[in-house]
């Protein structure tokens, strides 16, 4: 057990070092949320004036939306990295060492979690600098960040599974571009649920992106509804566990195809 934990740490460290040594990648993953934040922030500034929107400033409303959207969009590319490791022979090299298979998979999850966490905190801080108000305090923000990490795990694991199964960049690119915007807009990321068409609101109930938003927003409000936080958060955790389980399974099917 302690070996697995040690090995998970070695492999996580390797991935984090790789990210830090590619500054272009870092800058892009941080600049993109900034663009969302200030573009959407300016464009939709006045939607809060719509009757029934229910938020003081649009920036307050937007920050969790951008945090969650960024968690989805950065994690859904995880499969590209896995694919690259397969093509380069790195994965096979590790598979011929005694490293625990769980450590290989866990390292992906831990690395993605750390990256998503940092990205989320940066967005929250940028929002604060821009004048956003967080009435739920640190506890609320923490829940938002946790929800975005768990949501990121879901998409990261699916993306890894996809990368190992189809072994084609085009498929990952295609599915990601197809999914990102519908999943974001079929949620309360940018628009208050009360103002969404009713069919969209019903679809959103089944959208994990929306679960993260409901849990995060509720925790960040002045008067959190902990029932909402727990139910959505619990559903997200269950889904993440299922996704990681699935990607571990496809890992085995990869080994059969070697």
């Amino acid at each position, binding site marked *: 057990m302690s070996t697995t934990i040690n090995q998970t740490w070695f492999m996580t460290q390797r991935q984090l070092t790789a990210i830090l040594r590619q500054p272009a990648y870092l800058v892009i993953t941080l600049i993109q949320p900034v663009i969302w934040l200030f573009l959407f922030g300016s464009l939709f500034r006045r939607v809060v004036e719509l009757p029934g929107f229910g938020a003081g400033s649009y920036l307050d409303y937007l920050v969790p939306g951008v945090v969650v959207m960024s968690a989805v969009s950065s994690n859904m590319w995880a499969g590209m990295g896995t694919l690259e490791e397969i093509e380069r022979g790195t994965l096979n090299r590790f598979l*011929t060492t005694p490293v625990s298979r769980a450590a290989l998979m866990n390292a992906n999850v831990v690395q993605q979690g750390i990256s998503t966490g940092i990205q989320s905190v940066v967005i929250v801080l940028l929002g604060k600098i821009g004048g956003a108000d967080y009435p739920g305090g640190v506890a609320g923000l923490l829940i938002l960040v946790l929800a975005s990490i768990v949501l990121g795990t879901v998409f990261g694991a699916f993306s890894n599974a996809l990368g190992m199964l189809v072994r084609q960049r085009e498929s990952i690119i295609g599915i990601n571009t197809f999914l990102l915007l519908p999943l974001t807009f079929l949620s309360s990321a940018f628009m208050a649920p009360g103002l969404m068409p009713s069919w969209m609101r019903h679809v959103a109930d089944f959208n994990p992106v929306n679960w993260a938003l409901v849990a995060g927003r509720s925790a960040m409000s002045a008067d959190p509804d902990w029932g909402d936080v727990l139910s959505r958060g619990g559903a997200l955790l269950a889904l993440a566990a299922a996704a990681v389980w699935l990607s571990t399974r496809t890992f085995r099917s990869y080994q059969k195809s070697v």
Partner: protein
Amino acid sequence: MTTSPPAVQARDLMKTYPGDVRALDGMGVTVAAGTVFGLLGPNGAGKSTTVKILTTLARPDSGTAVVAGHDALRHPDRVRRAIGVVAQRSGADPVATGRENLLLQGRLYGVRGADLNRRADELLARFDLAEAGKRQVRTYSGGMQRRLDVALGLMHRPEVLFLDEPTTGLDPEARTAMWEEIGRLAGDEGLTILLTTHYLEEADRLAERIAIVDRGRVVAEGTPDELKGELHGDAVHVELREAPDAVDGTLIRTALAEFAGVREVALDGRRLSARADDGPAAVPHVLTALEQQGVAVASVTVARPSLDDVYLRYAGRRFADADAAPEAAVPAPVPANTSGAAR
């Protein structure tokens, strides 16, 4: 001669990939401990699949594989601890430095602390990467990267080292350097090396024993000399100053065929050819006999059979042809008409 069990023993390996591609068809190989063994064959012959099974990456449909005394199918973990693998594709992390790659590799095998650092530095020095070890691997040349790959495979002091196509894609200079390095490794105490290659020259130069692989199984095995020896001798070609007439021709053939170990004497115009068990030793006799017949000689050449000839004999086609058509190498039995080419 040796009483220790073989370092690698695989029997009756069968493996079919999805799409009915038969990669292995009764593959078997036995490598004595402490030796260098070469699997020689064109692309698609099944060498890499064999290595993947022996290194626990892939599982065969049936058959057995024992590596370093452990069953590769039942106890892959024990095998993994005992082997070092240098795969066809590099697998080094390009963003990490050479030294970082080595350190991580060591840690995965449980090497720690001072021993870990010492071993990494020792290997960097040995493979002429002491300076480069501080740089990211993506800045390396092909040869440097390949040397790092071998160092990675040696990090935990394995009993058996697998080298899958170690020099493919290297320029001639880097290839020669790699050959020297592998030659030195072979001298290491107790290290067993299983090498795959599709270069005849490489197998001939590095391996003590060679198995020729074709269509998923071994078609011939032995030392390079044994394999060449099975072609029954060297080719002796003599060019005469002028073509003898029919009567002289018969006399010449009869005279030469009397020597022990010389056969298949053939005369075609001015060109006389024969097979001899020991070509160089037969030359003086051949020349004396010709002189006694009053035939003047323009030139004599002796050609040792190459592994290419061996391959032609056992696989029924020229090595280069088989290599050029790897897809064709996988399915289908040998067409009847090509077997005539293997004399």
